[in-house]
């Protein structure tokens, strides 16, 4: 532990921010659905997995150019999100939040099974977008793909901010989150907004899956762990808060990376869970969560 030099710490930080960007995207996906429906969507990790796997299918196996494959993947996974809502969420009669959450667990198992049959059990690789020649920075090594991950998080956040703050559909989704009955009274079709929230979350999950695959490969059962990390980020940042999701995601990534580097890489996956438990014990509203809101939340 005392052997860690500045450049090593820097390396851990950079790796942490990269992986944290992925967790942040997963966390944003959780929050979009949570804000409109009060559901924690346990299939969120599977959207990420499908994103990575579909990209491999389109780009590597079918040889489609990277930008078109990127678009195809997002469209495909967005459609999966839409189908999940249409056939797993909406048909449930007298839905309680708990039954809906259990339905998302079923969906996650189903998607995992389908992916296993479609792509097999071996991890799949995707070429990095801009090659794998590392960039040196103060003794730390930066993969060009790291920059893609961080850059796409920034772009995603900017687009989403514009969507939720400036467009009427985005505002209507926030209105549903605020007060579904009142939203329906001004003519908003709440069911459509729920469908949109699932599609949007799936699309964002797909982006995360596409950019992370060249760094850490992708296999059919990766979704659960990504979902747990993303969920920890959500709770750390404050359930429902977008800035919280970003801060939470980056922090979980950095804690995990530092923990693995300085303590033991064997406990890599434990750090997020320790943080999750810590937050739930000591500050359940999270870092940026609203205490007032956390009081009236059902979970």
């Amino acid at each position, binding site marked *: 532990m005392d052997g860690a030099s500045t450049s090593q710490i820097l390396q851990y930080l950079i790796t942490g921010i990269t992986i944290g960007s992925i967790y942040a995207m997963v966390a944003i996906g959780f929050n979009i659905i949570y804000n409109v429906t009060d559901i924690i969507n346990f299939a969120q990790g599977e959207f990420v997995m499908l994103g990575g796997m579909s990209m491999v299918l389109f780009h590597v196996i079918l040889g489609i150019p990277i930008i078109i494959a990127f678009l195809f993947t997002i469209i495909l996974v967005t459609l999966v999100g839409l189908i999940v809502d249409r056939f797993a969420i909406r048909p449930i009669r007298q839905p309680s939040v708990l039954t809906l959450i259990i339905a998302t667990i079923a969906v996650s198992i189903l998607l995992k099974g389908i992916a296993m049959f479609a792509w097999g059990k071996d991890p799949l690789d995707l070429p990095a977008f801009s090659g794998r020649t590392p960039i040196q920075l103060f003794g730390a090594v930066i993969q060009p793909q790291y920059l893609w991950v961080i850059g796409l998080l920034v772009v995603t956040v900017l687009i989403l901010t514009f969507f939720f703050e400036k467009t*009427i559909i985005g*505002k*209507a989704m*926030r*209105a549903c*989150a*605020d*007060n579904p*009955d*009142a*939203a*329906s*009274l*001004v*003519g*908003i*079709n*709440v069911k459509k907004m729920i469908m949109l929230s699932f599609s949007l979350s799936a699309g964002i999950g797909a982006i995360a899956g596409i950019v992370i695959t060249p760094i850490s490969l992708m296999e059919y059962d990766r979704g659960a762990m990504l979902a747990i990390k993303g969920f920890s980020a959500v709770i750390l940042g404050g359930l429902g808060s977008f800035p919280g999701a970003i801060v939470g995601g980056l922090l979980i990534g950095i804690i995990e990376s530092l923990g693995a580097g300085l303590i033991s890489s064997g406990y890599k996956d434990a750090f997020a869970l320790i943080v999750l438990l810590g937050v739930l014990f000591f500050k359940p509203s999270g870092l940026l969560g609203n205490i007032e809101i956390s009081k009236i939340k059902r979970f």
Partner: protein
Amino acid sequence: MLKISKLNAYYDTIPALKGISIDVPKGKIVSIIGANGAGKSTLLKVISGLVQSKNGQIVYQGNNIANLSPDKIVRYGIAQVPEGRQIFIHLSVKDNIHLGAFLYYKRRNKNDINNRIKHVYEMFPILEKRSQQIAGTLSGGEQQMLAIARALMCKPELLLLDEPSMGIAPIIVQEILAVIKQLNKSGTTILLVEQNAKAALEIANHSYVLENGEIALEGLAQELINNPKVKKAYLGG
């Protein structure tokens, strides 16, 4: 304009409305008074589609709108100002008002929507001052004004108001009642539900008294004010 006949509604198995029949003629103010739990709010919620009815009819301009979903009923030109305001507390005042015009939110309607926003700001100048503020930070009276403004953004022909005077300073109640009268003068038909029976009888043309989910009395508002039973039960002797 709106004709409700033999309407029943239940919460699970408990009857909330028992064979209600009500007539709201075009251009009038009709008020419904009654105690807590009499079924007043339930009746409005059934009309706007938030609560399902069991049998009976709700005919609006020749169409049976019973049990349509709320977002479809708004399209007929029926807007509800719900009980307890129900504004979008985390959104700005401006966004709340814009969302009121959600159904018409297309580029080609931009001028029309801007004119309507101007119109509601003229009606409630305080809202224009507070337009950038988060709606949850408004006072009770301002929130009620915002709820009315939001409902007016969809150009309703029939406005359903659920307890607009609840929890509001008397002076603001007067202001809101004045706005309701003014709206009515400019052609909006109004169905008003109130516990504040005096106010509701004063501005209405026709009134119904609801008790335990049934119509106990009905008549011209002027006559009901002088009805000894109404006086005793609702106007404090």
